[in-house]
């Protein structure tokens, strides 16, 4: 049986499969079932049963999210599916692989999701810098139209679906789903108040589902091989496989599809080859820049949403950023704070004013102007910008590496102040 449904067709040296080859590799099975009469309700139930959780960072159950979309006679006629392909989380490089490597997999999944929620228009909200992915997707969409898999009354089923590629122009906040919807409407990408949630009132006020690329790419396998097969994939608690990445100074940085529940050690030591010679592992951010640091003592935990949550971090995007013992943890966190300060949309005060303040303190620490009281100011900001105190999740995301870094690398912060310089610089 297939054990790597997300990457089975990907060979970057060869390039993506065309529609014929993709279909020969068990592709577009979902569409066949839809044409043969699979109802949206039955489809949604299969996805619920699969246990698929969103792969964009939050890990929310996909079937449950879909079920909030109003259905039936009284529901709005126009609904939208939006794929979040605005991959900008620092240290995250998984959706790029899927879109460049197997664009039909994404379209296949989008057809399934659109049928389940009753959407006739779907947008792919793509990073402007992903020019290779854009070309691959546009080519695949043209092939699917040609084949009669997109457009009006697909294969005589009465199901209409257009897929439109929207290329963005670079702002991290667009990853927040309501900010993304504002951007798609041509507005500044400030997040919206919730409720109403997009599932009820989203794009142009219509019911809208926003799903991450990798989430959508899980659907074709579930439809082709079934829920029991999907449940057989995991090694742990959560279901399916996931793309896991490792970046930083390891021997073999990269991105691999592994079952959920794989031990972190296996990812870091076997796949990524362990640390480069002369370096030791100091810590790692398990799922991008807005996750809490974890330590070498956590290596035997499994890559599962709940298990990572137990030690105060998040699996999030599953792309790990590794800190070695010759790299300054204060510098690393400072780099992240510069990013978050720059990418704040500026709408709410704690984020707009807090992040640049934090960033300025890191610059002082780096350049030898750090003061004792700075550490308390940083700690205060972990509180001021924490969950529930800001309009969206951007600033709380920034407090994850900040708060955990202050806890785990306190001595490094103190040395910067005591020595009046970065101790890692010679």
């Amino acid at each position, binding site marked *: 049986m297939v054990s790597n449904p997300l990457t089975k067709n990907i060979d970057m040296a060869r390039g993506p499969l065309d529609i014929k080859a993709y279909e020969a590799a068990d592709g577009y099975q979902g569409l066949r079932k839809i044409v043969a009469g699979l109802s949206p309700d039955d489809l949604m139930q299969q996805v619920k049963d699969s246990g698929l959780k969103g792969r964009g960072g939050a890990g929310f159950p996909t079937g449950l999210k879909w079920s909030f979309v109003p259905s039936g006679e009284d529901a709005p006629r126009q609904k939208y599916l939006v794929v979040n392909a605005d991959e*900008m989380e620092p240290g995250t490089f998984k959706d790029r692989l899927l879109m460049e490597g197997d664009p039909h997999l994404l379209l296949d999944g989008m057809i399934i999701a659109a049928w389940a929620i009753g959407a006739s228009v779907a947008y792919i909200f793509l990073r402007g*810098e992903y020019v290779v992915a854009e070309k691959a997707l546009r080519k695949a969409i043209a092939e699917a139209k040609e084949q009669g898999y997109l457009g009006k009354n697909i294969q005589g089923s009465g199901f209409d679906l257009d897929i439109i590629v929207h290329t963005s122009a670079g702002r991290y906040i667009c990853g927040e789903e309501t900010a993304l919807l504002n951007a798609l409407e041509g507005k500044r990408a400030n997040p919206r108040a919730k409720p109403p949630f997009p599932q009820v009132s989203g794009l142009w006020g219509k019911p809208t589902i926003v799903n991450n690329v990798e989430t959508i790419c899980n659907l074709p396998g579930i439809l082709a091989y079934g829920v029991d097969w999907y449940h057989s994939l995991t090694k742990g608690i959560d279901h399916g496989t996931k793309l896991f990445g490792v970046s*930083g100074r390891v021997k073999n940085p990269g991105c691999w599809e592994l079952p959920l529940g794989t031990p972190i050690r296996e990812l870091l030591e076997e796949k990524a080859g362990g640390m480069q010679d002369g370096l030791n592992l100091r810590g790692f951010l398990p799922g991008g820049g807005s996750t809490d640091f974890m330590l070498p003592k956590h290596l035997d935990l499994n890559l599962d949403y709940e298990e990572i949550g137990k030690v105060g971090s998040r699996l999030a995007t599953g792309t790990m950023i590794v800190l070695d013992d010759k790299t300054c943890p204060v*510098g690393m966190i400072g780099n992240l704070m510069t990013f978050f300060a720059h990418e704040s949309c500026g709408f709410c005060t704690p984020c707009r004013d807090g992040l640049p303040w934090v960033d300025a303190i890191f610059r002082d620490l780096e350049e030898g102007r750090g003061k004792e009281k700075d550490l308390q100011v940083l700690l205060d900001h972990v509180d001021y910008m924490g969950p529930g105190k800001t309009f969206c999740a951007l600033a709380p995301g920034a407090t994850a590496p900040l708060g955990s870094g202050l806890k785990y690398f306190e001595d490094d912060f103190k040395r910067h102040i005591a020595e009046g310089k970065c101790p890692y610089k010679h």
Partner: protein
Amino acid sequence: MSEVVSSNNVIASNVTRARKLTDAEIAEIEHEMTLYPDKQAVGLEALKIVQKHQGWVSDESLLAISRYLDIPAADLEGVATFFNLVYRQPVGKRVILFCRSVSCWITGCEEIRSKIKQSLGIDYGETTADNEYTFIPVPCLGDCDNGPVMMVGDDLHRRLTPQKIDEIIAEYKDKGEA
């Protein structure tokens, strides 16, 4: 009077005239208008289309789009200045989008930045005197296993070393026009 920008507009007051959009620009904007239910949604796309043709978005271009799509100039300016990849100042023939996010920082992007400074004489936000390159730092380019990385125009360059920077610059010199 129709050419005068209203007083609450953020566009510089000495700019009063919209330029004429080219046929090619209009054709592309019209195509985008078929993909969205209203004109406002096309604003960002139109800014990018004009930038592709003109190299950047001048006040005159912004006003032209504002009129064409019937979006208030201030709203469009709000969108234009919000996004990292809309250039409201002239840029060089080739834009270097330089990843300075965490994985590239760990793998040595600061050394590459110094090398570019030394080789081209420009730092973040600057354009070379010969107008060949503009150097812009961007958030994570999503190629973290190949850091440090940067884009020059549409080309992605991976696993950068100071030596590679020299090779890349030489390569574009041979290619000539962007």
